[in-house]
C-alpha cells in the first residue's frame, strides 16, 4: 500500500520534470542551451503566486472546468499498473474507464476553450474535438488488442500479466499495438507532429489555443493536468509495452521504471526534433495509421495467432 501511494506521489512529482526534460533534450539536440530540468516546477510556483484573471465573458464553467480537467487525471493515476513487484495496485479498472476519464478531462478543456468567447479558444476546441474523435477508436481498438494478449481487461492486471508472461507468441500484434499506442501518446498529449506545444501561432496551436485566456492558478492547474496526462500515457506505455524489470528488487525496479519513462520522453523529443508539425487536415493520416495498426494488431492476433 505504501509503495502504491509512493508511486503515485512519485509520478505526480516527476510529471513537470518529464515535460521539461523533453524540452531540454530538444534544445540540446538543436544546439541550444538546454532549459533547466526544474523549469516546470518554477513555472508552477510562479503561477501559484499570481492573481487569477477571469474573462468578463466567461461563465461558471471557467471557474470549475480547470478542476474538472485535472481531477479525472489525478484519479487515473490511482489506476495505473504497479511499478514494483508486490506493490498494491487497482487490478480491476479497465482501459475503457481510463480512456473515459481522460476524455472527460478533454471535454471540460474544450468547454473551457469555448467559454471565453475568443475566436482562438473556439478554434482550439474545434481542432481538439476533431483529433479526439479520431483518437477514440484507435485507443479502444488498441486497448482491446492489448487486453487480448495480456488476458485481462484490467489495466493494472494487464501490466502485471505482461511482465510475468511476455507475449512472445504474439510479437507481431504486440508490436502493432505498441506503434498505435505511441501515436496516440503523441496525439493525446499534443506533441509534434499533431500539435506544437511551444508556439502560440494561430495556425499551429491546438492545446494552447484553448487555454489562451487562462491565467494564474488556473493555468497552473491546466499545465499540471497536461504533464500528468503525459505521465499517465508514458507509464502506461512503459508498463504495457515495455513490460520487464518488475521482478527485480523494489528500488531497482523503480529506477528501471524511471529510466523507461525518460527513455520514452527522449524518444518523443527526438521525434519532435526530426519531424515537422502536420497540417490539421494531415493529422487524420497519422491517426489513420494508428487505427490501421490497431486493427492489424487485432487481426494478426486472431488470424495468425502472432
Amino acid at each position: 500500500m505504501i509503495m502504491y501511494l509512493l508511486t503515485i506521489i512519485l509520478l505526480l512529482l516527476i510529471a513537470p520534470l518529464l515535460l521539461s526534460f523533453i524540452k531540454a533534450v530538444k534544445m540540446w539536440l538543436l544546439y541550444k542551451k538546454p532549459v533547466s530540468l526544474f523549469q516546470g516546477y518554477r513555472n508552477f510556483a510562479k503561477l501559484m503566486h499570481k492573481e487569477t484573471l477571469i474573462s468578463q465573458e466567461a461563465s461558471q464553467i471557467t471557474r470549475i472546468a480547470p478542476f474538472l480537467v485535472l481531477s479525472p487525471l489525478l484519479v487515473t493515476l490511482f489506476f495505473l499498473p504497479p511499478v514494483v513487484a508486490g506493490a498494491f495496485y487497482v487490478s480491476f479498472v479497465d482501459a475503457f474507464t481510463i480512456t473515459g476519464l481522460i476524455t472527460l478531462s478533454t471535454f471540460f478543456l474544450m468547454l473551457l476553450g469555448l467559454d471565453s468567447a475568443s475566436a482562438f479558444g473556439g478554434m482550439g476546441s474545434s481542432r481538439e474535438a476533431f483529433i479526439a474523435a479520431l483518437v477514440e477508436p484507435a485507443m479502444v481498438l488498441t486497448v482491446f488488442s492489448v487486453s487480448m494478449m495480456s488476458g485481462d481487461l484490467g489495466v493494472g492486471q494487464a501490466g502485471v500479466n505482461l511482465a510475468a508472461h511476455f507475449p512472445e507468441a504474439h510479437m507481431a500484434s504486440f508490436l502493432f499495438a505498441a506503434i498505435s499506442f505511441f501515436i496516440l501518446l503523441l496525439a493525446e498529449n499534443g506533441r509534434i507532429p499533431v500539435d506544437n506545444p511551444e508556439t502560440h501561432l494561430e495556425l499551429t496551436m491546438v492545446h494552447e489555443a484553448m487555454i489562451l485566456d487562462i491565467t494564474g492558478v488556473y493555468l497552473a492547474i491546466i499545465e499540471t493536468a497536461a504533464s500528468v496526462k503525459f505521465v499517465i500515457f508514458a507509464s502506461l506505455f512503459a508498463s504495457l509495452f515495455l513490460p520487464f524489470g518488475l521482478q527485480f528488487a523494489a528500488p531497482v525496479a523503480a529506477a528501471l521504471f524511471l529510466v523507461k519513462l525518460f527513455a520514452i520522453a527522449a524518444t518523443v523529443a527526438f521525434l519532435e526534433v526530426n519531424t515537422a508539425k502536420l497540417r490539421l487536415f494531415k493529422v487524420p493520416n497519422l491517426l489513420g495509421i494508428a487505427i490501421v495498426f490497431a486493427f492489424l494488431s487485432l487481426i494478426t492476433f486472431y488470424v495468425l495467432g502472432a
Partner: protein
Amino acid sequence: MFQFDTLSLVFIALIVLGAIPNFFYSWGYLPHIERKAHYQLHYFTFVLSMIGVVLAANALTFLFFWEIMSLTSWQLILTETKEHKTIHAARFYFLMTHFGFVFLLLFFLIVTDGNLSLGFEAMHSIAARFAYPTLLFFFVSLGFLSKAGAVPLHVWLPYAHPQAPSPVSALMSGVMLKIAIYGMFRFLFDVLYPWPLEWGILILVIGSLSSLVGVLYALSEHDIKALLANHSIENIGIILIGFGMGMIFDSMNLKVLSSFAFIAALFHAFNHMSFKSLLFMGAGSVLHQTHTKNIEKYGGLIKTMPVTAFTFLLASISITALPPTNGFLSEWMIFQSMLGSSHMDDTSLKLAIPFAIFALAMTAGLAIACFVKAYGITFLGLHRSSNAKHAHEVNFLMRAGMILISLVVISLMLFTPYYISWFDKVLGSLGHTTVYTKIFPDGIWHLHSVGIRGGVVSPLILLLALLGVTMLLLFGYRTLGVKERIHRTWSCGYRTSPRTQYSATGFAGPIRRFFGWLYKPDEHFHKTSIAGHKSKFTDAHYEVHVKPLFEKTLYDSVGKAANFMSYWVYRLSHFEQTRYAAMIFNLMLSVLFSYRIFAHEFSWATLLLEATVMIISVKVLIIGDKK
C-alpha cells in the same frame, strides 16, 4: 387483453420515469401553446397509448394501441402549424410510421393465422411452423426499426422531432423510440426464438451504421432539436449493437454473454430515455426563451439560464458516455460484451466484430465533439443574437421537469445495480440465463463484465473519487485565497464580440471537411472583395447545408419514381375519355386469353402468340396513330 409480465412492467417503468417529469415540463410549457385542448387531449392519449402498447397481450390490442400512438404523436407534431415545414414533417412522419405498420401488420397476420386475438405464446408455435422465418424477422425489424429510427429508416426523425413542441419531442425521442425497442424484445423473444446467427449480425450491422450515421449528421446540424434527433438515431444504433450482440451470442450458445449484452441494451434504452428527455427539455427551454432553433443564434445562455445550463451539461456528459455517468456505464457494458467476442469460435465473425467496435468508438468520439459544440455554442461565450441576450430562466414548472428528469439520470447513475437487477429479471422471465450474480459478484461496488477475465468498473467509487478529488482541489484553491480580477478576454489584441466567436459551423468545420465525401455539403460563400484582392474583403457570408445522403438517394428517388409513375398512369387513364369501347374490348380480349391459357392449357408458344395479338390490338385500337 393485457398482460403484466416483467418485460412489460420494466417498460412501464421506463414510460413512467420519462413521462412524469414531462408532465411538469409540459404543464409549464402550456402557455406557449395555442391549441391547448387539442394538445392536452393528444398528449395524454399519447402517454396512455404507449402504456397500452407495452401492456398489450394480443395482436389486436397491440396494433390498436400502436396505431393510436402513431396517430396522437402525429397530431402532436401538428400542434403548431405556422410553418410549412411542420406540415411536411408531420406528413413524412405519418407515412414512415405507417410504412412500418404495414410490415407489423403482415407479421401479425402471418403469425396469428388470421386470429388476431391470439396470445404471444400461441404465436410462437405458428411462427415455428412457418416456412420462411427470416421473412418474419424482416417484417418485425422493418416494422419496429422504422419507428425506432434505425438506418435506413431514420430520415423522419430530424424532421419530426424539431417540429413537435419540446415536451413532445422529449417524449417521442425519449420514450416512444423505446417502445419500438420493446417491440423488438417482445417479438424476437416471445415469437421468433431461436434466432439464426445471420439475424444478429444484421441487427449489429444496422446498429453500427445507425450510430455512425446518426452522429455524423448530428455534427452537421445547426438546428438544436434536429441535432438531438440525429443523436437519437445514434443511440438507437448503440442499443441495437447491444441487442445484436446478444442475438449473436445466443445463437452461438454463449448464454451468459448474451444476457449481458441484452441487459446492456436495456440499460442503454433507459439511459437514453433519461438524458435525451432532459436534453430535449433543455433545448425546449432555450427555444422557449429565444424563439429560434438555430444554434448559431444562441450563446452565453448559461449566465441567464443556469438551471437549464447545468442540467443540460449533466445530460451532455451522460450522452457522450463519459465516466462516471450512466451513459458511460451502459456503453461500457456494450463494449465489454463486444470484447466477449473473443470467446467465439467463428473466426470470420471474430474479425468482423472489431469493425463494430470501431464504429461504436468512433461514434463516441464524434459524440463528444458534437456535444461540446452543442453545449459550448448554446450556453457559453457571448450571446450571438439579441434573442439570446434577452433570454431568462424558464418558469418553475419547466425547471421542475428538468430537475426531476435529471434526478432520473442521477438515479440511473447511483442505483445501477438496482436497475440491472430489474433487467436481469426481464431476461429471466424471457427464459434466458440470469446473470445478476455474475455482474455483481461481490456487492454493489464493482460492475463486472461476464466475459472470462472481463473488465470491471466501479461506478460509485469512480463518482466518489472524482467528486472527492475535485472538492479537494476546490478546497485547496479556496484556502489559497487567490485574488481574482475580472477583465475582458484577451484576443491577441482584437476586441471580442459576438461576431468574432467561433460559430457552430466553424466548430464542426474540420470534421465536416474530413467527412466531405459523405456529406457532400451544399456550400454558399459570398464575399465582397476590395479592389480585386483575394484576401481583402469587407463583407463575407458563408453558409453550408448538408442534405443526408440516404435522403438524397433513397427517399428522393422513391418520390421521383412515384411522380413519374403517376404521370404515366394519368396519361394512360385519359384514353378512357375517348377510347373507352376500345379499352373494354382489349380488356375482354386479354381476360379471355388469360383464362384460355392459364385456366385451360398452358404453352409458351400460345402465350407468346396471344401477347403479340394483344400488343397489336392495343396499339391499333387504343393508342392509334400519332397525330
